[in-house]
């Protein structure tokens, strides 16, 4: 008999802890944004926006991805996670550091607290990366999906190290180049290196399973992987020495080519799916992909206006970052949470009786009406917030923030419903 994937007994608690912490972080974003609406028409390098960016990228995006990775490592790497204790140590140091970090940024006290917070974050990230890499030593059959996951972990580490250097640079000013230049490198290592590569690797594996697709070609992923990584490396080298310049267009087009390869793969998954009806969770995924395309469409304009030293570049950069963090990544999480969390809950609660009597199915563990409200509120948020940012209309931004609060509350309640739904046994 061949091995099949089973749920490790320690998995439930660690994954659920990550999902809950991420949901709490997400709840905090809307009130923080409400306090910072006045800052959104200024430069992005200011305390409140840095604080919000980091709670979105780390507390929300990265925490939930850590949790999902622990759940999906057996699927993607085809082997058991190396250490659950290490996973606990990672999240404890990471989240403690994050709280310290976010608070220090919010009040802008770039001293000991911010430094300790950043070092704790780096420790948590290093533990996560070490756990994944030690696990990967047991890989029986290497494939391109694993390449994406492992490389994304390296980029995450690069992002964190750059972040720590920048934190210490606030006090000791030792970096040889402008702080904003390092911010560009830090942001792109995080967004394109960590989030994008990881999302591509995981989605390439999961989409065909959820959609029961039959005609996707892995060759597209094999083109996507080098294109994105070469683009990132070139961006690092070129931007470090020369800043943004005309060559940046070429680098952006390489990255664009890589993303197009992935989009073709995703299209093939959707086009050849056996399961025709898309549920709300998968619709969120589809919206997420569209938002990524929208963000990429903004990128050449940022380069163009930056080269002209036009102030519009700053506004577009805020829009670009918002669409990526609160649009692309958030939409993906909002949907995929209700694809992955119900399974881990179902496996714990119903697996022992499944097959003997009728049980609830994973899709029946969450509230569908609430998920619909979440979806509609999210669409309203994206439209009002993006237009509000672009047109500098504070009332429209505020409507967007209210919609985001509705999304976060619906999401949090639905996560609790999924976790607390009474077993019918």
């Amino acid at each position, binding site marked *: *008999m*061949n091995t*099949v*994937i*089973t*749920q490790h007994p320690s998995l439930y608690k660690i994954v659920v802890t990550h999902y809950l912490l991420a949901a709490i972080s997400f709840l905090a974003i809307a009130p923080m944004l409400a306090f910072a609406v006045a800052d959104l028409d200024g430069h992005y390098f200011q305390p409140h926006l840095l604080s919000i960016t980091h709670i979105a990228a780390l507390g929300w995006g990265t925490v939930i991805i850590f949790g999902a990775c622990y*759940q*999906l490592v*057996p*699927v*993607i790497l*085809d082997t058991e996670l190396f250490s659950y204790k290490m996973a606990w140590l990672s999240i404890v140091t990471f989240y403690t550091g994050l709280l310290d970090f976010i608070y220090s940024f919010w009040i802008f006290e770039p001293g000991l607290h911010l430094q300790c917070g950043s070092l704790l974050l780096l420790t948590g990230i290093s533990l996560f990366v070490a756990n994944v890499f030690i696990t990967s030593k047991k890989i029986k059959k290497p494939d391109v999906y694993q390449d994406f996951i492992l490389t994304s972990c390296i980029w995450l580490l690069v992002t964190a190290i750059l972040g720590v250097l920048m934190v210490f640079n606030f006090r000791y000013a030792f970096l040889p180049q402008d702080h904003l230049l390092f911010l560009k490198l830090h942001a792109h290592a995080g967004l394109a290196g960590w989030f994008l590569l990881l999302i591509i690797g995981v989605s390439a*594996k999961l989409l*065909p*399973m*959820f959609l*029961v697709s*039959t005609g996707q070609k892995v060759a597209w992923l094999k083109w996507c992987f080098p294109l994105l990584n070469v683009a990132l490396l070139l961006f690092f080298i070129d931007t470090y020495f020369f800043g943004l310049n005309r060559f940046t267009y070429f680098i952006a087009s390489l990255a664009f080519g890589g993303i197009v390869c992935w989009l073709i793969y995703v299209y093939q998954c959707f086009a050849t799916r*056996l*399961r*025709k*009806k898309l549920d709300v969770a998968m619709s969120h995924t589809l919206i997420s992909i569209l938002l990524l395309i929208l963000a990429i469409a903004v990128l050449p304009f940022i380069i163009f206006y930056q080269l002209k030293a036009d102030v519009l570049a700053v506004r577009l950069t805020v829009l670009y970052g918002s669409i990526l963090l609160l649009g692309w990544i958030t939409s993906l999480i909002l949907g995929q949470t209700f694809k992955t969390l119900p*399974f881990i809950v*179902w*496996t714990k609660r119903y*697996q*022992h*009786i*499944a*097959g*003997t009597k*009728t049980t609830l*199915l*994973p*899709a029946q563990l969450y509230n569908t009406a609430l998920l619909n409200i979440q979806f509609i509120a999210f669409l309203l948020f994206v439209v009002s917030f993006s237009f509000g940012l672009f047109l500098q209309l504070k009332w429209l931004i505020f409507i967007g923030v209210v919609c985001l609060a509705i999304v976060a509350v619906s999401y949090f309640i639905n996560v609790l419903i999924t976790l607390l739904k009474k077993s019918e046994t």
Partner: protein
Amino acid sequence: MISFEITDENFAFKMEILNALSTVLDPELQVNIIDLGLVYDIAVLKSEQSIQISMTLSSPHCPMGGAIVNSVENCISHYFPLYKPQVNVVWEPAWSFEQITEEGKKQLGM
């Protein structure tokens, strides 16, 4: 879809097992494993008091693989308590959508 020779001495018993297994659902697709074409063979070993199920999964990395296999074992133990379940997961022949029954296709909206 799996079928049995009517001349098989265990024909009626195997049909009972088949009916029981058709209550086991793929938790993600919400279609039973018989209509999905996941079950390849059912063997009854009366001397060993065991029921052997040869089955596959829609993907070798199916996150719900363990849960589905466990459900099959639960099902056999529950409906046929005198028999020990033995589930063999095989990857040859690989599962394909042609193995889904008409009813399964209807449920998937194909």
